[in-house]
């Protein structure tokens, strides 16, 4: 299973190259990969329908319980088949839609990266693995929304989507880690059986809210819904694939996946149901205000995501059944409608529903595909959408306590869905023919194949619902509800209340469709509401962050080295000073008498030389004094048992003096640039910092740090490393890797020096 998940990343590496080689057919060739994955994972259906799961695990960071582990159950499999199946169609479609685009190869790579990440996300067993793939989908979504990176709108939308989903992702990470602590494992398959433990844990509420923050941002739930319509800046295949069929459902997937662990509590029910209902209504109402094909679809997607969340929140067996069935139906028809919208846009150059009409004759196949998808969205029999909608009604109607408000809200959203279906899949193809920027004609095969197949599968599943119901959907429902249940999907339920509701929905939807222009006018009068909407908060927050960043940069990064130093010194003093003061006077100020005469002389020599170095007016004098300081330090090493250090220090000091002498010929004379007052201030600061260091040493010389480390080296130097000079053994054997790093740094410094000196000579010569 691991190669299957990762194959997309590998393919992304060669996709661009393949596109250069085979410009015309690259899309078809690359689509073979998701098609192959679809077939491969179809082989799992039988295993999983039998009640088994497929799992693999590779150790990643075993000490922290992080594994690269995957497992497939019914829920994963449903998503995997959607991802690979729709992925196949979208890749074929992209080849036609972006034909001739210079960066099409890169586009293929991004789509493949996304597909692989999404597969990893829905198959992940380990929570950290899930999080990594979760973030990868956010990143690939960023790249795809901003694909047309020369437009500011695209860049803005890409960044907005990234910021919203990545912030949610951070919350999710925190939530998953806490969940791992509460449940005692990071493997979801283990946690699934520990739901009661987690729900009784004191951290249950924070865990729930953190994870919901991740799921809600990803699945564009109110009030985080605003990024999704803006994401329509992406090329249409991306909108169809990421922003309706798969990625935005990652949040829903997470809710469904964790339902057996976190679900079923009151807080889960109220929060998830409430947010879902709000999203459903807000999305549906905002959809009516739009005239752009893609934005209408985007808002209706927000609404559909709200429906899914709402029913997962209810959590009754009927609600979960309805959510899973609706999820499949929605992915099929919404993907198809997006692809149809893209084809219409591609052929006519227009996306405004008011300017489109009568394309039936010019684009018959696209019209048929759009019609099929629209019928499914409107929930008409015998399409699969009808079954999904009926089940929603049944679950809402059967929910205890809030049946009436819930049912009416779902009916209202469904009415608007009927109208949206009419506006996007029906309206552009019927009525009077309008003039469009481009002369319309039927799209090429790669553009109609995808929507047609999706539309037809909606029809086929509607006619034969039991085929997919038993093998694919009931294992998925079992995975969400955590208990076995039987699913009987039938097209005809007999005459019951839901049929009546369906009829009401259809009539109401038709009414909304007929009066859509009046409604839109009325809604646009309410335009003023948008100034306090969440999008406004987003931009306020972003601006505020920029102001803060600029302010602190101006304050802390003045560009004057000495102010940086002053800030560093002040911080060190501020942090360490009070602590040291609280410890009382430093110990160890006593042992004066055991200091020998020559040691006193050496200390005096070093201090004197340092004083000369800072007071000297001549450069050479300062260098000479600096050399004396160095030799003095080397003598300290001699006196206190460090012959290696002493030798090295002597050599380095000699070479440093040579170096300084070579360079100082070329440097300007010492100048006194600061005023006396500034010098006094700096001297005060420097002396205070020096006093701090002295105090720290006086404290620390009485502390023994980890005696074991040095003891180990001394003990094992001869037996293990065959060396009597322990310092050298540490350097070349025990800590040899550090030394390797160090000589690499030296080499880099030499390359830098060489480049600074020699490259300029060549440049001057060329002048």
């Amino acid at each position, binding site marked *: 299973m691991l190669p299957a998940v990762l194959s997309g990343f590998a393919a992304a590496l060669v996709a661009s190259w393949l596109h250069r080689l085979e410009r015309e057919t690259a899309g078809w060739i690359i689509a073979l990969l998701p098609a192959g994955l679809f077939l491969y994972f179809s082989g799992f259906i039988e295993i999983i329908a039998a009640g088994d799961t497929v799992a693999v695990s590779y150790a990643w960071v075993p000490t922290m319980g992080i594994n690269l582990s995957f497992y497939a159950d019914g829920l994963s499999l449903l998503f995997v088949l959607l991802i690979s199946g729709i992925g196949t169609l979208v890749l074929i479609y992209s080849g036609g839609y972006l034909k001739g685009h210079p960066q099409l190869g890169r586009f293929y790579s991004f789509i493949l990266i996304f597909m692989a990440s999404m597969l990893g996300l829905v198959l992940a067993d380990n929570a950290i693995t899930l999080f990594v793939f979760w973030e990868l989908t956010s990143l690939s979504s960023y790249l795809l929304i901003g694909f047309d990176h020369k437009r500011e709108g695209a860049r803005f939308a890409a960044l907005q989507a990234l910021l919203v989903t990545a912030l949610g992702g951070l919350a999710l990470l925190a939530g998953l880690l806490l969940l791992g602590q509460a449940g005692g494992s990071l493997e979801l398959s283990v946690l699934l059986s520990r739901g009661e433990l987690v729900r009784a844990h004191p951290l249950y509420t924070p865990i729930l809210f953190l994870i919901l923050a991740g799921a809600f941002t990803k699945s564009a739930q109110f009030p985080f819904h605003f990024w999704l319509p803006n994401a329509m800046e992406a090329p249409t295949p991306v909108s169809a694939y990421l922003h309706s069929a798969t990625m935005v459902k990652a949040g829903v997937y997470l809710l469904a996946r964790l339902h057996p662990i976190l679900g079923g509590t009151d807080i889960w029910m109220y929060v998830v149901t409430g947010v879902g209902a709000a999203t459903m209504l807000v999305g549906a109402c905002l959809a009516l205000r739009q005239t752009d094909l893609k934005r209408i679809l985007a808002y209706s997607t927000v609404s559909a995501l709200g429906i899914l969340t709402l029913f997962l929140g209810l959590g009754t067996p009927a609600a979960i059944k309805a959510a899973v069935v609706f999820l499949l139906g929605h992915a099929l028809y919404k993907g198809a409608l997006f692809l149809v919208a893209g084809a219409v846009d591609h052929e006519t150059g227009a996306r405004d529903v008011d300017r489109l009409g009568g394309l039936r004759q010019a684009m018959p196949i696209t019209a048929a595909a759009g019609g099929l998808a629209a019928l499914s969205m409107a929930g008409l029999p015998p399409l699969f959408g009808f079954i999904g909608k009926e089940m929603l009604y049944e679950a809402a109607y059967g929910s205890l306590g809030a049946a009436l408000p819930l049912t009416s809200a779902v009916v209202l959203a469904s009415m608007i869905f009927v109208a949206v279906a009419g506006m996007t899949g029906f309206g552009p193809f019927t009525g009077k023919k309008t003039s469009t920027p481009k002369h319309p004609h039927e799209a090429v095969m790669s553009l109609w194949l995808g929507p047609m197949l999706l539309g037809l599968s909606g029809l086929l599943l509607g006619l034969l619902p039991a085929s997919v119901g038993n093998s694919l959907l009931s294992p998925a429902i079992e995975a969400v509800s955590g208990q076995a249940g039987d699913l009987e999907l039938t097209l005809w339920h007999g005459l019951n209340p839901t049929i009546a509701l369906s009829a009401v929905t259809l009539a109401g939807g038709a009414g909304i469709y007929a009066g859509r222009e009046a409604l839109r006018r009325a809604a646009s009068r309410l335009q003023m509401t948008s100034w306090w909407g969440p999008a406004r908060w987003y931009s306020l927050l972003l601006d505020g962050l920029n102001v803060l960043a600029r302010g602190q940069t101006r304050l802390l990064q003045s560009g004057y080295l000495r102010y940086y130093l002053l800030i560093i010194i002040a911080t060190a003093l501020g942090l360490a000073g009070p602590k040291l003061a609280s410890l009382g006077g430093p110990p160890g100020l006593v042992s004066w008498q055991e200091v020998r005469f020559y040691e006193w002389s050496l200390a005096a020599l070093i201090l004197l030389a340092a004083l000369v170095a800072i007071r000297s007016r001549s450069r050479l004098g300062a260098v000479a004094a600096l050399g004396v300081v160095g030799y003095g330090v080397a003598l300290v090493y001699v006196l206190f048992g460090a012959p290696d250090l002493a030798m090295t220090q002597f050599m380095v000091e000699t070479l440093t003096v040579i170096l300084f002498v070579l360079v100082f010929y070329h440097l300007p004379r010492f100048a006194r640039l600061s005023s006396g007052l500034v010098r006094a201030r700096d001297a005060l600061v420097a002396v205070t910092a020096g006093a701090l260091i002295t105090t720290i040493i006086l404290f620390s010389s009485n502390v023994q740090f980890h005696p074991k480390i040095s003891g180990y080296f001394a003990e094992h130097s001869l037996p293990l490393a065959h*060396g009597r000079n322990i310092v050298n053994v540490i350097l070349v054997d025990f800590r040899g890797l550090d030394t390797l790093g160090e000589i690499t740094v030296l080499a880099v410094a030499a390359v830098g020096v060489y480049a600074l000196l020699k490259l300029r000579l060549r440049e001057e010569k060329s002048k």
Partner: protein
Amino acid sequence: MTSLILSTTTRFLLPLLLMFSIFLLLRGHNEPGGGFVGGLLAAAAFALHAIAYSVGATRRLLIIDPRALIGAGLLIAVASGAAPLAAGLPFMTGQWWSPEVPALGKLQIGTPLLFDTGVYLVVLGVTLTIILSLAEE
């Protein structure tokens, strides 16, 4: 600034200093010394030569560019670390042989010594690259 005394002294000192630097490198595992100080001493010897004669003369004496020494040193150090990989041991595990050499008795030769030789060459190359290019200014 060539002085006769300096250049004559240097002619005798240079081979002595170089030999001493190699001595320091070889004994470093058991006595004070090692690749760092050995390399620095050798570099100082060549720097003395450059001062006594000229940078050009030192470069002629060296034959190879000091930059090549940096690369060679790094390669030797990495290779000595990689050698145990062939035996299935982790990177930089010390490997030792004790061959019997007729005149010298039993010797201890190991990858840490090879590594130290790499350090020696890098330090020598780095220092010479810096000093010689600066002196050419």
